[in-house]
């Protein structure tokens, strides 16, 4: 086996040095009744060639562009990833290094994370960002637990237009706690109905997602006011941060915590993971934040360098009193997003966001002209809801056979939205493919 370098001579020499006779004799402390009796039952080892063939067979059974025209968003977006980003990201020194606990020989990862924290804070308009977390869903759950810690209140009001999967994750995290989770309904405009907040007391946080699950831009100004009037924190979530290349970011609305999914910034979708939990907050809450943080300092010669810092919040120091049990960050995904943000650049980011918006508006406009409109008239980004006529399900299935995935049926998430579909368009969707979709839908 090519990953196991020991020759029989090496093994003999080492066994002799240890003073045992065989590899089996290395396990004297494993009692006999703790041992396996038979061999593991696994497929026979494959050669590299056989493995390639096997994997190709599996990956060929997946529907991906360009063969398929995929109008799916809903928390996972198709954006072009520059070759330079993929190339840089494959460097061994980034890929095969450990968490930078030894800063002298980890300055590459540390500076890159410091840059990631900075770009994230700037993108979201927040004071500080952490070194990243698992994904948008767990980041949001951690944000709400953080709000509970800060305010010492135990109720959170969560918009029903936060990604349904994220709400499920929040429920899972909250199940063993004494915190209460109140869901806010949505208005006819397709944004969160905040009126219910007036009747709530002991509120730790108000959480909204913008753009929300329907692609609509939330009224963050009112959300902030409602939350702050109740002395609760405003938590703004997101699944498509490219929107902040165009729309005002959470920080401009005085959000206390902004967190969400960063997959759209240069990370392949890979069936939903690994992704990037982006997490940022106001400076005054930094010591309550979960996750790793990289800070700037100097070495003994006074030269600028970076270290993991404020570890006294973390599990390995504080144990059960830690701000979270999280012990990892999605470092390589954070790095990918930094490379992506740096490549697109400040000017490019605005231009790219606007192009995404215009492409999506093009499809929205074409469908509207064909008689299919969105029930919600709020401004959107990259995604919108459209109501198709009764029985569209059959057309949808026919389109699948034609290798067109005409959005996400919303009924299983929102039973009142039968025949409503969430369509997504990014800069990668060609104009002619949108024209084809409209033509197929009309016929």
């Amino acid at each position, binding site marked *: 086996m090519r*990953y*196991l*370098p*020991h020759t029989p001579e090496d093994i003999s020499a*080492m066994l002799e040095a240890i003073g045992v006779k065989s*590899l089996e004799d*290395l396990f004297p*402390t*494993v*009692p006999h009744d703790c*041992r396996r009796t038979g*061999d593991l039952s696994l497929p026979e*080892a494959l050669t590299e060639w056989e*493995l390639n063939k096997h*994997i190709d067979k*599996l990956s060929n*059974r997946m529907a991906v*562009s360009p063969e398929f025209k995929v109008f799916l968003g809903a*928390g996972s977006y198709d954006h072009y990833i520059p070759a*330079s980003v993929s190339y840089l990201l*494959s460097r*061994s*020194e980034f890929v*095969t290094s450990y*968490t930078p606990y030894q800063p002298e020989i980890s300055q590459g*990862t540390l500076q*890159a994370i*410091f*840059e990631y924290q*900075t770009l994230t804070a700037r993108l979201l308009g927040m004071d500080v960002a952490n070194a990243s977390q*698992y994904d948008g869903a*767990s980041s949001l759950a951690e944000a709400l637990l953080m709000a509970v810690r800060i305010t010492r209140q135990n109720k959170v009001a969560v918009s029903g237009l936060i990604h349904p999967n994220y709400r499920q994750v929040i429920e*899972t*995290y909250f199940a063993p706690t004494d915190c209460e989770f109140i869901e806010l309904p949505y208005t006819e405009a397709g944004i969160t109905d905040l009126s219910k907040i007036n009747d709530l007391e002991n509120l730790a946080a108000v959480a909204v997602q913008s753009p929300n699950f329907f692609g609509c*831009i939330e009224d963050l100004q009112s959300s902030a006011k409602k939350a702050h009037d109740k002395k609760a924190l405003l938590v703004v979530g997101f699944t498509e941060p490219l929107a902040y*290349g165009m729309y005002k970011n959470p920080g401009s609305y005085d959000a206390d915590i902004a967190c969400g999914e960063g997959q759209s910034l240069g990370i*392949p*979708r*890979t069936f939903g*993971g*690994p992704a990037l939990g982006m997490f940022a907050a106001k400076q005054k809450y930094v010591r309550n934040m979960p996750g*790793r943080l990289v800070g*700037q*300092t*100097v*070495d003994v*010669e006074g030269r600028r360098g970076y270290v993991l*810092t404020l570890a006294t919040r973390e599990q390995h120091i*504080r*144990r059960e009193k*830690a701000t979270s049990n999280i*012990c990892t960050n999605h470092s*390589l995904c954070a790095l990918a997003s930094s490379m992506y943000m*740096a*490549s*697109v*650049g*400040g*000017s490019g980011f605005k231009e790219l966001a606007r192009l995404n918006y*215009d492409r999506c508006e093009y499809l929205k406009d074409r469908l509207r002209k064909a008689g299919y409109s969105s029930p919600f008239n709020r401004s959107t980004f990259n995604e919108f809801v459209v109501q198709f006529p009764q029985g569209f399900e059959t057309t949808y299935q026919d389109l699948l056979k034609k290798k067109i995935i005409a959005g996400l049926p919303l009924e299983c998430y929102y039973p009142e939205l039968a025949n409503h579909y969430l369509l997504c368009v990014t800069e990668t969707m060609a104009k002619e493919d949108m024209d084809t979709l409209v033509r197929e839908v009309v016929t």
Partner: protein
Amino acid sequence: MKEYPGTTGLILNEPLLWEKGKKGRNGYSLPRRDVETYAVDEALLGEGPDFPDLSEVDIIRHYVRLSQWNFSVDSGMYPLGSCTMKYNPKTNERQVSQAGFAAAHPLLPPDLSQGILALMYELERFLVEITGMDAATLQPAAGAHGELTGMLLFYAYHKSKGAQRSKIIVPDTAHGTNPASAALCGYKPVPIKSNDQGILAPKDVSQVMDEQTAGIMVTNPNTLGLFEENIKEIAEIVHAKDGLVYCDGANMNAVMGIVHMGDIGIDVLHLNLHKTFSSPHGGGGPGSGPVCVRTHLEPFLPIPRVIEKKGQYLLSADFPDSIGKLHAFYGNVGVLIRAYSYILSMGADNLKKASQLAVLNAAYIKQKLKDTFHLAYDRPCMHECVFSDKNQQMHKVTTLDMVKRLMDYGFHPPTIYFPLVVPGAIMIEPTETESKEDIDLFIDSMKAIADEARENPDLLREAPKNSRRRRLDETAAARKPCLRG
């Protein structure tokens, strides 16, 4: 004169991203605009992020230079205890980058995602077989996420029995994340000490195990690199009070094909695919922490689960007792693909061989260094061995000084000051992918450092000298945090 890997070379300086670049440059090929500009609600518009503008060459040089400041498995040995920094096979990277996987949307209809669903289904079966458990979830994104999943399973189990419990037993040889994970489920950790052999004594467990205790979280092999020999008896004590046994499987690399975790009384076990199953650490993540359970806990596993019906794979949420969802979608699928490729490349025999060689390497290091460094527990070790700085304290050098010096020799330091039961711990896990030559060189380096501690201790106190940066002021970093530019 022996040639150690550590040396000096030309390393290039590089400023922060925003300290270079110039407005008007770009590093991205913007798509052609083939649609008109549509109106937008001006009140919602922002200014866009304050990112620098850089050319592609700027970016390439920036990150190539940064990368050269990192130590990595691909450049040298990483004997980091409990982290299993084994070699990360390159074929795994090829497999995960296939377009059918990399570009797959997570909400594809099942008919159009059979390839990845089949892979996930099979991987669950493989992990169940390797551990000797009955069912698995691939959803947890990391080891600590797996622990949280395990604790939620405990919580759901006791809830289903009608009475919630308030405490959980956590030995001093468990991983540091364990108490924090338990606390998220409202369990108060009850610490117990390992005995003079470095393992748990059944009587210590029975003293604290009661009907208010949800169970125990053990790490086996534990963080001293010792097998918990009394695990079966301990499991019986816990089960007798209807408690559950959680095993942190971070150290599974020692016992693949050797120990059957189901038979020894483990109810829940998490794995770290980025340790045992060769997926790279990526400078701190992403990892993956699947959780394996025995049959009585299967109804509580997270949803959706991959199921098979007449040769077709489906995602099913139809498990009413499930603890719910832990991840926005299904976990770190990219990491799962790597682990799957690894298991298929290795096969049963090589997985067992890997564990044997991992133990061989650790036992060899222990043998060769035990006359030089104080060995905390002189007993047969598994995949890692734990020394301390006790023999070197008289020269006024610490564990930290010694491992910083090890960098100059070209090795990544071992895990230090952990486990907490060994003051000044030096925890060495070589893994099976290090050759005898490299192990010997590591041993020689450690011995040379012990000599230096005696003869020229300042060399250690001032180390490292060959790295791009020397020791950094961590106190200043924490006192006045500068977390962004």
